[in-house]
């Protein structure tokens, strides 16, 4: 979504420029192929614009990769000639070096290119894909527009390199591939799990004391609806697997969502917990779990905060996690601030009767129509605060207008948590956009969209919940303005980039604004 908005707005800009009187510009053909923010973790450090700057022949283009700083001021134009099938999939910055992942659709290659602080290319790492792998990637990685980079992404390791996570196919297995690309010297390793299951989904949790922590779901087959969950540790130097720890071994079944280093340099993994014999995909969670783990995968502490006992002090909630007027919570993110407090950000959703589905059933003489009798209502945003000992300290619901999503027939029998995952990955109905945290963890911003029907303003809004030096504030930007079209894009933590396009004047105002 973000990428397409940047591209669309930039194209408008290009069009507005080329539409001027100068005939030379009318003949010029420059197309923007990709554009996106370059991030260090969640912080935007710059932007890239990938243009086809000329066509050399039927199979070859000249490209210009323009890199700007986080003020959109041009740092460098990198020009090169390559196949017409090249595009940029991802980028990342690790405090000193920059990496781009180029994809050649025709040659079936992933090309990771590393640029140093001096702006010169340092290393290039290539991965050859098979046709089978491409088909798998087209249905997963290449299709997924995932703001939070779950199950994909290039993650910076401060000053040392990058970790990349992409889906992969090995023989008959559907798995994932974690790569490390060093920026200190030309060095790379890959990790591809293939043993013990037929399907694997991996999520990068973080790196601590030279160990790369991954959350791995193992499925016995493509139709397996009850995967086993593991935390896997890899040696950052070699990529060798150091441990594989089942998340079923504690008091409860646990599904990791994120990891943080806290309380005197210990790794803690956060997430929701379930019945010991439950199903982390389909069942309703019992609450939040905080698992301390050392670099050998040994659990050193466990803490559970149940919906009824712990969160019930702050919310009107059932033991299954249903919150009054809010519904069930879909957990978007968990993170920790410098003072040790932990925040969980979720969004409510609930099944409600569908008038359209019921009418469709009635009209078809009692037989189930194409639309389900239930639909999903996406409700408010919630932020839960835990102290450094993982006790619930506060829970606050942030009101917003609800969205409703009709479901296809048969979905009334699908479990509520699974519907939450469908809302996130298939329907894209949640309003939560992204969370950004600054490098020293003293400030964060949770961003989400909303729609307002007020006296003074009717239209969509971009909303932020900001944390700074222990204080929480909220802010709202009306995205409907006197401009023909306005877009809000991520910028540095605590800021956004607003693009206002004025059709009549053929003018694009790009301005950075702070979230108050």
């Amino acid at each position: 979504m973000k990428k397409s908005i940047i591209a669309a707005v930039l194209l408008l800009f290009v069009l507005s420029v080329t539409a001027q009187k100068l005939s030379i510009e009318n003949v010029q053909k420059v197309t923007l192929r990709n554009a996106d923010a370059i991030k260090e973790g969640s912080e935007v450090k710059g932007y890239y614009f990938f243009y086809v700057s000329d066509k050399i022949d039927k199979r070859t283009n000249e490209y210009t990769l323009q890199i700007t700083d986080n003020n959109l001021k041009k740092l460098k134009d990198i020009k090169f000639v390559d196949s017409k099938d090249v595009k940029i999939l991802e980028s990342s910055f690790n405090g000193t070096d920059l990496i781009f992942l180029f994809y050649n659709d025709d040659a079936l290659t992933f090309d990771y290119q590393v640029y140093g602080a001096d702006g010169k290319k340092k290393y290039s790492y290539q991965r050859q894909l098979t046709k089978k792998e491409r088909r798998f990637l087209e249905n997963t990685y290449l299709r997924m527009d995932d703001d939070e980079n779950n199950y994909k992404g290039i993650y910076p390791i401060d000053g040392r390199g990058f970790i990349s996570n992409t889906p992969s196919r090995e023989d008959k297995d559907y798995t994932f591939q974690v790569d490390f690309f060093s920026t200190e010297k030309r060095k790379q390793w890959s990790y591809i799990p293939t043993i013990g299951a037929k399907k694997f989904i991996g999520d990068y949790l973080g790196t601590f004391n030279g160990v790369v922590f991954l959350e791995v779901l193992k499925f016995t087959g493509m139709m397996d609806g009850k995967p086993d969950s593991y935390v896997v540790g890899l040696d950052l130097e070699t990529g060798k697997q150091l441990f594989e720890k089942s998340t079923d071994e504690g008091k409860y079944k646990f599904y990791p969502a994120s990891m943080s280093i806290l309380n005197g340099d210990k790794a803690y993994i956060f997430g929701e917990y379930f019945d010991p014999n439950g199903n982390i995909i389909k069942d309703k969670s019992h609450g939040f779990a905080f698992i301390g783990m050392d670099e050998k995968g040994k659990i050193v502490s466990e803490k559970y905060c149940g919906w009824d006992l712990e969160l019930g002090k702050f919310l009107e909630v059932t033991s299954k996690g249903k919150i009054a007027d809010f519904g069930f919570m879909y957990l978007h993110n968990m993170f920790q601030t410098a003072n040790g407090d932990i925040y969980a950000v979720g969004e409510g959703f609930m099944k409600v009767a569908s008038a359209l589905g019921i009418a469709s059933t009635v009209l078809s003489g009692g037989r189930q129509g194409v639309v389900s009798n239930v639909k999903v209502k996406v409700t408010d945003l919630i932020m839960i605060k835990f102290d450094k000992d993982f006790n619930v300290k506060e829970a606050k619901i942030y009101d917003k207008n609800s969205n409703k999503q009709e479901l296809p027939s048969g979905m009334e029998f699908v479990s509520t948590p699974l519907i939450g995952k469908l809302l996130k990955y298939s329907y894209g109905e949640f309003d939560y956009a992204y969370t950004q945290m600054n490098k020293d963890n003293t400030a964060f911003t949770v961003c989400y969209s909303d729609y307002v029907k007020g006296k003074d303003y009717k239209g969509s809004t971009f909303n932020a919940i900001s944390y700074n030096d222990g204080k929480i504030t909220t802010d709202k930007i009306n995205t409907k303005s006197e401009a023909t079209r306005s877009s809000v894009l991520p910028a540095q933590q605590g800021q956004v980039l607003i693009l206002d396009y004025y059709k009549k004047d053929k003018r694009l105002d790009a301005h950075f604004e702070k979230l108050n």
Partner: protein
Amino acid sequence: MSVKTIPFLILILLISRLYSTAQAPAIYAFQQDDTLVRNNYLEEVASKKKMLLSGVPKSAASDYKEIYESQFDEINDLVKTRSVTAPVAQEYLQSMVKQVIAANPELAKLHTRIFFTRDWWPNAASMGEGTIGINAGLMVFLHNEAELVFVICHELAHYYRDHTQKSIDKYVETVNSEVFQSELKRLSKVQFGVNKQLEALSKGIAFNSRRHSRDNEAEADRYAFAFMKKTGYDAGGIKTCLELLDKVDDSLLTTLKLEQVLNFDQYPFKPKWIQKESAIFSQLGEDDNQLSKKEKDSLKTHPNCQQRIAFLADSINSAKTGKMFIVNEDLFNNLKKDFFREMTEQCYRKNNLSRNLYYSLLLLQDNSEDQMAVYSVARCLNQLYENQKNHKLGLIIDLEGKEYPAQYNLLLRMLKRLRLEEIAAINQNFCRKYAGLMKDNPDFAKESTKAFQLNKS
């Protein structure tokens, strides 16, 4: 005449003269413009536009119309909102212009409109139809009347030689020429390598146009020398002026110490406001781009000033008998002081709040009892608060960039990082600090009341 940097020592001296000698008036009285003079200028500009439009060849009427509309919009804005027509400044400038014209009767027929502007950037410009503006941002750096007279002569020479009109004619002729059009037609049908060929074609135009401009600069210098040597001013002013133009850079203004001017007992300055962050291509060389030195130089609007000095060296040495001041040295120096304040205020009027704050803080740093500076800082911080609250701040502040001096960049970084409540807290503490000094200033009282209210909210 674009201006880049100025020698450090000269600037230190200049700034210390600008401020330290200033037993600053309690409240600064801004120059009151003469609306009659301004309206006369506007009428003359309108009549000139009408005359030019009526004379364009039909074959390229739309090209000329487009260029003239844009040119006269700029001239009207300059005269209406940026010109200084206040009698003292205007009469002072005219007395030098009269001297130049009296010594060079061929200039009398030109019917020019020459005035100072309140613009902050160190430049002067001949607008092409007789309007010539000399920016406050250039005046504050000049050392003497001889340098100012050279600037006047140089801009008069551009108009006398009709450089702007000739450039417009040449551009219109080129883009409408059969050769150019047929090349464009051919390229519009080519499938591969079009942009490379277009780049070569457009580079040709840019090169011709720029070279023309460089030739114009050299010619304007030669004519300026010829005009100036008859005026009684020391031609040595040409050399020092060109040296100044070569190096002028407001980073050489006294260094703004943010951590001092915005540090308060109850609200200390936070280093994190200006702390350096990790940045992409942090070690990228200043000159790291694809243009060769020759190409970069050829794309400059003005050729290297050292080269210009070298071209005129013999002439200058043969005519160094004149004076540095003829009209009024004291007035020249007073105007320089005034113009720093005028351009500070103009930045506020033109909604360039970051630069308004920068200059106001510099004034305050130099003289902590400067009431205009105190009021200006308080007012600017309140405006910054309002704009940030309404998500419009990004439209009225500059963004950190290599084109700005380091100390201004630090202020820009700070403005980009300050949270709403921090702006309010800074201004409340600022107003509290200067409450005693400003006790009789009702304008400041309003800003102070507002600052206290904002910090409570």
